[in-house]
Each structure stands twice: as C-alpha cells, then as structure tokens.
C-alpha cells in the first residue's frame, strides 16, 4: 500500500492548482492513501480547499508563524518530522517543489524522481530528460521511501467533491533562522495564470521589443489568454522571467497555445508538447515550430496579430447579440 504525503503549494489563501495535479499523479499508485500537508501561518482556508479534492483521505495543517512564506530550509525539517510511515512524498515540479523536495529527500536520505510524467506502479515512473528528447523509465527500490516532483502538465487536476478529515499537528522541531524572506515582486494578477490558463499566447524574439508585446496582450485580452515568452524574448528583456516557457522555465499544457515569432528551439518545444492545439505564426517558413504546430501561418506577425484580434473580437460581439 502506498502511503503518500503531498506537500501543498499555496499563497496563504488559495491552494495552487498544481497540488490537485499531484493528487491525480498520486492516485495512479496502487492502493494509494493520500494525505496533503499544508504549511502556513494560518492554514485553515487552504486546508479546506485541499480537503475537497477527490481521493484525499486526510489533510494535516502545520501552522507556525515561521511558515508564512514557503522557505525550503524551514519547511523541510517539518516535513521530515511528519514523514513517519509515508512511503512516497510528492510535491509539484514548480519552483516551490523544486526548491523544497530535494532538501526533504536529502534529510530523509532517500532518492528523488524529478518531473514524474507517468506512474507505472509504486516503484516505476516515467520522466523526461534531455529537454524532453528522451523519456526514461526509472525504478526505485522496493521498500525504500521515495520523494518525487510531479510534472503538472502531464496530469489533469483532481476533481472536487471530497471531504477529507482535517487535523492540526503540532511538531516539536527547531527551525533554522539562517534564511529570511524579504519580499516578492509578483507578476500582475489581472491576467490568467500562465501555468493553469486554458489559452496561452507566447511571443519570441521576433517581437523586437517589450513595447511590441502589447499587441500580444491585446489579443490575449480578447481570448482570455495568459501571455508567455520564449527564453530569447526574456533574455532580451521583452518579457518578465516568470513568463518563460520551456525546459528551464514553465512546462504548460493549455487547450490552445499560440506561438508568435517563436522559431521553436527544442528547449521551448519541451514546455508545450502537452498543449492540445498548437498554432504557430512566423515569417520563416522553415522555422522548426511548424513541425509540431497543428496550424501554421507564415507571415508578418505585426500584420497578422492585429487582424486576429479584430477577427476574434468581431465574432464575440456577434455572439453577444
């Protein structure tokens, strides 16, 4: 029987959708009994959301003023103290999980499987390597505890309707003071979140400037889409770092992905292969992005994007009548 502990990702008020995807991954293990732990200063709101996820048996709240911000050096020893009989400890393969889970694994002296994309059984997992160019099946040792990060783009979010028991646990763990949170400059919250948006529009270096990204935002507003960027566009300063899609940025799986002025380096493509429909707009007909796009349009993005905006805006108005 797999006793699985999932470490919830949240912002203090809302459970991050990545956690619901970890639940789906965990449910793929045979005889999975799933517990979610919420580390927070005040965990009640997030715990209530976690308890509603289908397939979760128990939600544990670790409340401590020191947990107000997700600092791996402080959270890891608490997770270790809670680890007890758990056979698997999972977190999302987000910057939160990538920061925290290896610290937990090392303290538990156990291995970690990063970016789990499929579960075969309690000891066999599939994960991408080499920017997604090679998928490897790994086998962990039976009877040994295992830490994993879940490639969220590979799993649907668990549904609601659950009613897990919520309990508060007090731990007697000395927490380090060597790491202190100072501040977070968050991205604008008035747009859909890149990682959970159903539609994403990304721009590449061909946009030419941060100013020119405006036309993507305008199109995104018409479609209710999030805006992403290629590494080249981020490196050039056209877009913020949290917008980067790809091997070293965000791995996403929207219903619709529109790549605009992105040539399609393999490092970018690995971030979008799970998108349901991919559209590429590029003036270079030889760009590798066209090899994987469902719909390609060769041409000048500065003409096409405003035209697209007019077309989708016009149709929405007709529907509204």
């Amino acid at each position, binding site marked *: 029987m797999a006793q699985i502990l999932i470490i919830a990702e949240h*912002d203090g008020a809302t459970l991050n959708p990545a956690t619901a995807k970890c639940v789906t991954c965990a449910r793929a293990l045979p005889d999975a009994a799933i517990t979610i732990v919420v580390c927070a200063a005040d965990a009640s709101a997030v715990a209530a959301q976690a308890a509603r996820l289908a397939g979760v048996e128990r939600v544990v709240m670790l409340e401590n003023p020191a947990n107000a911000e997700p600092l*791996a*050096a402080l959270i890891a020893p608490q997770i270790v103290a809670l680890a007890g009989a758990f056979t698997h400890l999972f977190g999302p393969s987000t*910057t939160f999980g990538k*920061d*925290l889970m*290896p*610290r937990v*694994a*090392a*303290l538990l002296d*156990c291995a*970690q*499987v*990063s*970016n789990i994309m499929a579960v075969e059984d309690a000891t*066999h997992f599939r994960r991408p*390597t*080499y*920017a997604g*160019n*090679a*998928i*490897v*099946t*790994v*086998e*962990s040792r039976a009877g040994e505890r295992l830490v994993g990060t879940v490639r969220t783009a590979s799993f649907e979010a668990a549904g609601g309707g659950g009613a897990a028991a919520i309990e508060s646990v007090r731990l007697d763990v000395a927490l*380090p003071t*060597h*790491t202190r949170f*100072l501040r*977070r*400059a968050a*991205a604008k919250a008035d747009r859909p979140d890149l*990682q959970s948006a159903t539609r994403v529009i990304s721009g590449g270096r061909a946009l030419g400037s941060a100013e020119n990204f405006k036309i993507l935002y305008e199109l995104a507003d018409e479609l209710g889409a999030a805006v992403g960027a290629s590494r080249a566009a*981020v*490196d050039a300063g056209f877009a*913020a*770092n*949290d917008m980067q899609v790809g091997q*070293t940025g965000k791995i996403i799986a929207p*219903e*619709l992905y529109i790549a605009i002025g992105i040539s399609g380096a*393999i*490092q970018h493509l690995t971030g979008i*292969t799970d998108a*349901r*429909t*991919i559209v590429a707009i590029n003036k270079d007909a030889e760009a590798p992005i066209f*090899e*994987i*796009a*469902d*719909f*390609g*349009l060769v041409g000048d993005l500065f003409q*096409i994007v405003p*035209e697209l905006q007019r*077309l989708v805006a016009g149709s929405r108005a007709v529907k509204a009548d």
Partner: protein
Amino acid sequence: MKRILVGIKRVVDANVRIRVNPDGTGVMTDGVKMAINPFDEIALEEALRIKERGAADEVVVVSIGVAEAQQQLRTALAMGADRALHVKSDAPVEPLTAARVFLQLIAREEPFLVILGKQAIDDDNSQTGPMLAALWNRPQATFASKIELAAGTARVTREVDAGLETIEVDLPAVMTTDLRLNEPRYVKLPDIMKAKKKPLDTLTLAELGVEPRTQLKLVRFEPPSQRQKGVLVKDAAELVGELRKRGVI
C-alpha cells in the same frame, strides 16, 4: 582565504540534437560535442565576478565524472578559476551522491559560498543544490538571478513562478543559478595556454570516503511521442475558422 566552490558538469552540448540509442540504454554520445552545463558556466561567471570585486580570494571548480571531464575543468580554468578538483567516477552519480561528494570537499576546502547550476541539461533533475544545503545544514538560495554579498550574509533574488523573490541568507550557503544571473565570458586563447599550468587535482570517491549509491535504476530510454505536423493556413481568417471548427476559441 575566502573561497568559492563551483560545480562543473560535463554534459552533451545544448545545441546537439539528442537521439535515444537503439537498445534504449541511454542517448547517443559517440562523437557528440560535450560542454560545461550552461547553468554551471553561469555559476562560475558569478564566482569570478565576486572574486574580481574583491569579495573572494579563490575560485575552485569541481567536476565529478569520467576522465574526459577534465576538458571542462580546463575550460573553467581558462575562464578564470584558480584551481580544479576532478572527482573521478566512470559511472554517472546520482544527485544525492554528488551532494555527499561536495559535502566532503566542503570539509576540506571550507568555502563561504558554493555555487551550482539550478539543473543539468542532461538529467534535468534539479536536485543537487538543495540536497547539499540540507546535508550541510546551511541555507539554500535556488534559481538566483541576483546575488548581493554583505558581511556574513547575502541577499539573493530568486526567479520563482510568481515573479521575483528576495531572501536573505547567512553565509556559508549554497546557491543555484538561473539564466538571468549573468552572461558568461568567452575564453580567450592566451587564457587557454595559462590554464594548462593551473593546478588540477584528481580524487577518487573512495579517497573522499563516499560510497556511491544507485537508488534509481534507469530501466529504459525511449524517444518522446511525436506530435503530428499539422496544416498551413493562408491567412488569419482561415486560422480563426479552423480554431472555431475545433472549438478551441
């Protein structure tokens, strides 16, 4: 001596087209161009800049791996590292073993800062930095895009999913690099000549008292499932029509 330890991993060059080998035991590496893991290059560049600002005295680069990893260490010396340590291992080591090796080297070298890449572009594991910080019982600052050192502490700006986060850590600490931390310098020819005279010591895992552990067996490698190439449309109107047909807009 204020010392910085930097990890250097030998990986398949980022521009090489990766192919899974026919028997599914790994990827093709014969005759393939190898390079320093790009994030490790950024780590070294940051260490060199810290030294050039006068905040460190010595930069020591470390590579764990096959004999040929010395090529990447020589490149690191040519970039400006002062000396190199090659920890020989013919088999790849898992991240936890790599972290245990670094922990032993920390005991010998007593650095005030260890800078590693946030991930290696071959395994894409993203584990060694936090694992080392845990074993060392010291702070970690992962995905760094800005490092500001002060007396006994450092302020690090981190690239996180929500944006940019700034934390303060006491030193010594482990930091891992993200792409925007710096742009690594190019190696100049005279520096390559000079690098040949810089010290490069070889150690074994046994000398460091580290027993390598294989906790994860790599059962088989497969190429990813390929997406089908779609169709070209002639203009924006046709594109919108197709997307409506699919029901995605």
